[in-house]
Each structure stands twice: as C-alpha cells, then as structure tokens.
C-alpha cells in the first residue's frame, strides 16, 4: 500500500492510472451492449454523434460506442493473454539461466539470442498467414507470446545473476533451503517489480503488433479490436467521406492506451531505480 501511495505522487502514474481505469470501465461496459458486435446493419448507417448514438454509427450499420467497448475489451484480452504467457516463459528461462548457469544457461541464452536476432516481425507475419483461418483472440495472443519473451528473459537473468552473488543466498543455501524454495521465496520478491514492468511493456508491444497485423489483414476481421476497427474505417474510406467520428475513435483510444501503459511503466521503473528517481526530483 505504501508503494502505491508513493507512486501516486508521480503525476504520470496518477494520470495513467486514471486512463487505464476509464478504459477498463469501457471494456466492462461491453457486457451491457444492446448489439452483437459481429452483426451488420443494427442501426442506421453513417450518423454523426448524437444522444441516441453517442459516438455515431459507421457504414456497416454499427453503433461506434458499443463497438469501441468491445474493441478495447478484445485488445486488452489479447494483450493480457500474450503478456502473461510470455512472462511465464521469460521468468522460467531467466531464472534457470541465471541461477543454474553452466551449459544449460549458455544454451538458454543462445536460444533467446536467436529470437532477438531473427526478424521476428516477418516470422510472425508468415505464421499469421498460415493460421489465418483459425485466428481468434486466444490463438493470436499465444502466437505473440511465443515471440515476446527473449529480451525480458535476459533482463530477469541479469537480475538473478546479481542476486546470486548476495550474501543471503549463501546463508539460505548453507541453512539447507532447496533451490525451488530459494528461488520462489527469496528471489521472487526482488524480481516481482521488474517482471511487472516488463509485463506492461510487453502488453503495449502486443497491442501495437495486433494493430499492425490487422492493418495487413492477418487477423479475423469480424472480431472488433482497436486494430480491426481502424482497418474497417480505412477500408470504407472514412477519411475521404469525412466520417471523422469513425476514424478518430480507434485512433484516440489507442493513443490513450499506449500513453497510459508507457507512463505507467516509466514511473514504475523509475521508482524501482532510485538513481533516476533522485535525478528526477533534482537533488
């Protein structure tokens, strides 16, 4: 609780916390949607925002406000699935490579180096092309999870490497603590904040990649996400026809989401690294 109190003093944390709360409420509102987001023609087409249709309607005959609630919800689902699965991989690889070291460590780091070096985006695009027909929210999340762990595994490994050199490790080992217990009980509390900040960064990466894949037409276009919503608006020439409410909704929502995630991760990592915290205050 004290951590939260300290963090909230940082205006960036406070703002991003509010924005994320707002987006979360929006996502939850999707439960109460009067329309099925995959159906077309529920409402009159191309209406400007009004009291009946808060954010107007689009050329597919859908209410943009309710579409947006689904879009935010689905983008967040993909991000959470991908980011949490890839965290599990990153933590396992990072902890084992850091604590065990030796040959296992070398091999694990070599694998993560390969993932860092190959043009991941192209590989993801090739894979997405192959499974295009079976692409749903969870599959997309899993696909991105497989590719999003390498860098963070390295970060976690270097943290564990430095923890291993600390005195309390010797004390714990000499007093008979098993490896698993040592890692879970003694190391986890130290690495938890780090894992959390990589989690946020990874979520932003996943949402950005989803938007890009939607732009390339490689996701299921019937499921509303921030990416597909924008892509529909572009393919219906919303820009040329002047339907600003259609094109701006996904753009503004994604900018809000990205700025919030980024500020959250910056303020947390500054909090974790007292050196930058002191510089920011200007002591």
């Amino acid at each position, binding site marked *: 609780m004290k951590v939260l109190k300290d963090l909230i003093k940082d205006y960036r944390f406070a703002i991003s916390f509010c924005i994320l709360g707002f987006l979360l409420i929006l996502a939850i509102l999707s439960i109460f949607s009067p329309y099925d987001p995959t159906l077309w023609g529920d409402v009159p087409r191309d209406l400007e925002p009004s009291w009946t249709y808060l954010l107007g309607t689009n050329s597919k005959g859908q209410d943009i406000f309710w579409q947006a609630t689904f879009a935010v919800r689905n983008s967040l689902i993909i991000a959470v699935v991908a980011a949490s699965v890839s965290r599990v991989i990153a933590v396992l690889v990072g902890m084992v490579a850091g604590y065990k070291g030796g040959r296992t460590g070398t091999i694990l780091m070599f694998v993560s180096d*390969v993932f860092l070096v190959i*043009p991941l985006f192209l590989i993801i695009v090739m*894979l997405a*092309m192959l499974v295009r027909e079976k692409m749903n929210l969870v599959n997309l999340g899993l696909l991105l999870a497989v590719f999003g762990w390498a860098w963070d595994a390295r970060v976690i490994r270097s943290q564990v490497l430095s923890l291993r050199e600390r005195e309390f490790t010797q004390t714990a080992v000499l007093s008979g603590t098993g490896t698993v217990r040592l890692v879970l009980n003694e190391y986890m509390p130290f690495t938890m904040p780090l894992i959390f900040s990589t989690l946020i960064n990874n979520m932003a990466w996943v949402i950005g990649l989803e938007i890009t894949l939607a732009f390339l037409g490689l996701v299921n276009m019937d499921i509303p996400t921030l990416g597909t919503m*924008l892509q529909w608006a572009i393919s219906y020439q919303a820009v*040329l026809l002047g339907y600003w409410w259609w094109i701006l909704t996904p753009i503004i929502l994604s900018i809000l989401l990205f*700025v919030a995630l980024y*500020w959250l991760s910056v303020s947390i990592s500054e909090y974790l690294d007292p050196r930058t915290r002191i*510089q920011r205050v200007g002591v």
Partner: protein
Amino acid sequence: MAFIKGYLIPRLFQYFLVIFLGLTAVFVIPRMTPSDPVQRTIAQLRSMGSYLDPASMNAFIEDLTEMYGLEGSAFQQYGAFWKRLLQGDFGVSFFQFPTPVNQLIRISLPWTLGLLLTTTIISWTAGNIIGGLAGYYNRSRWSKTLDTITMIIRPIPYYIFAFALLLLLAYVFEIFPVSGGTDIGRQFEFSLHFIVDVLKHAFLPALSLVLLGTAAWFQTMKLVVQNVNAENFVQYAKLAGIKENKIVSRYVIRNAMLPQITVLALLLGQIFSGALITEIVFSYPGLGMLLYNAIITGDYNLIMGITALSIVAITTAILVLDLLYPLFDPRVRHL
C-alpha cells in the same frame, strides 16, 4: 592468436549457426501449413474464373510443385533449398510471373535504402546531440519541456502516428503528395526536377520516421548522460576546472555514446526488411511495399527471399559491430 582461437572462431561459429537456424525456420514455416500451397494457388486461380482442361491442369500442377520446391521427400527438398540459396537464387516471383525474385528486390531496395539510411542517420545524430545536451543540463526549462513532449510522442505506435501525419499534412492541409515515390509515370532521369520530385514524395514518410526516431534516441541518450553525469570522474573533471564544453563533448557524451552505437547497428541491419508500415501508409515503392504485396498474394518465394536477405543482413550487422566495438570502447578487449 589467442584472439582468433578464443574469440573469433566461436563468434563466427555462432554467426553461421544463427543464420542456419533462421533460414531453416524460413524453410520449415511455410511447410507446417496443413493446406497445400499448390492446391491453394489453383483454387485462387479458379476463383478468379480461369478454366484449364485436365491435361494442362496436371502439367500446371507439376510446374507449380517444382517452382515451390515441393518435389521429393522433405529431406530432398531441404537439400534443394540450400543449393538454390547458396547460388543466391530465390526462384521466380509467383504473382509477378516470371520475374525473378532477385530482380524485384533489386528494383525496390534503393528506395528503401535511400529513405531508411537517411532517416536513421538524421534521427540518430539529432536525438543523440539534443538528448546529450538535455541530459547534461537536465535542470533547465527547455530540457524539461523536451522531456514532456517526447513522453507523449514516444509511446504512440508508429502506424497511428504516420497515419495521423498523413491525414494532417496531405488531406487537411494539402502540402505534400499523398502517396508514391515520384509523380505517377515519371521515368528515372538525372535532372533537378526529378530529384525535387523524389525528395518531395519522400518528405512525409521521412518526417514520420525522423520525429519518432529522434524522440526515442533523445530519451535513451538523456537517461544515459544523466547516469554518466553522476559518476565520479565527471565530478573530478569539474573540480579540476576543465571547461564545461570539453567535459560535455569529450567525457560525458563519448561515454554515453557506447550503448547508442550498439542499437544503431541493430537498426541498420533491420533496414533490409524494409519499413513495412511506413511504405504501406505512404505507398512508397520500397522493399516493405514489395513484402506487403507478397503477403497479400501469398507469394512464398518472394517472402522467403526478403526474409532470408534480412536475416543475413541483421546477423552480419551485429557481427561487424561486435568486431569493431573495441575501437569505440578501449575497455572492451576480445582477449
């Protein structure tokens, strides 16, 4: 000798191993699909309404199988794949039949190289200089203002940023052309007019890349400089009465540059996969656009060619960087 045996040979081994694994992935991934690319192509042709009689259909299927490199067992295919690759032959593009993939890449590469080399170098230089100064004078007002601006620009995904820029400067205020590398139908010539035309078309994509790139370099450089600034040797230099200019340029920025050089090499390597999104948003005729067309038409040979090229380019960039690094940082010695 110790250098060659202890560092160079293991490093080269790693280099070739990574390329080998990457290219093997390029071979394996298209073959993991349950659907047969040959049948899919034929289905696509049918859906476009073309009809072939059974005999010529069989001949066509054979041709396709050969062209996709799908003859024989998986092992034979793999051998043939490497044989072709080592000859630098990626086969013919399928949807721009019968142009060889190599030729398509050769036409597109100069556009991408021109755009990305220029913008990467501009944003790297600008971001590092401004970021370095802002980090050193981090308590001044302009430094804090710049920091706030980059805090807002930086997290915006490139696609949305580029799109917003295009909306603003090409649709709302019609200052720049909406798309293309030159005016439609203009032939290559050495004239002032042609060069101005190319520059004018390249301006918007370049602007989007430079703005976001500079913001990213600015932030990392500012942070690194702040950290270097807090180190003892800078304090000593100040106490010893060395001029401020000299401290900034010779001691602080030189030390802070090191991590930046590493990332620059990575980015230069990535140029070969093209700025996919940039080129699509601005319809710029480079490698990214070529790749995009290959993706939407399912042109496997072309995708494989571009992916293979960029795997080799990135790994080579990192290798060269690792070997040259001691020149920038005398503290690093490969044994």
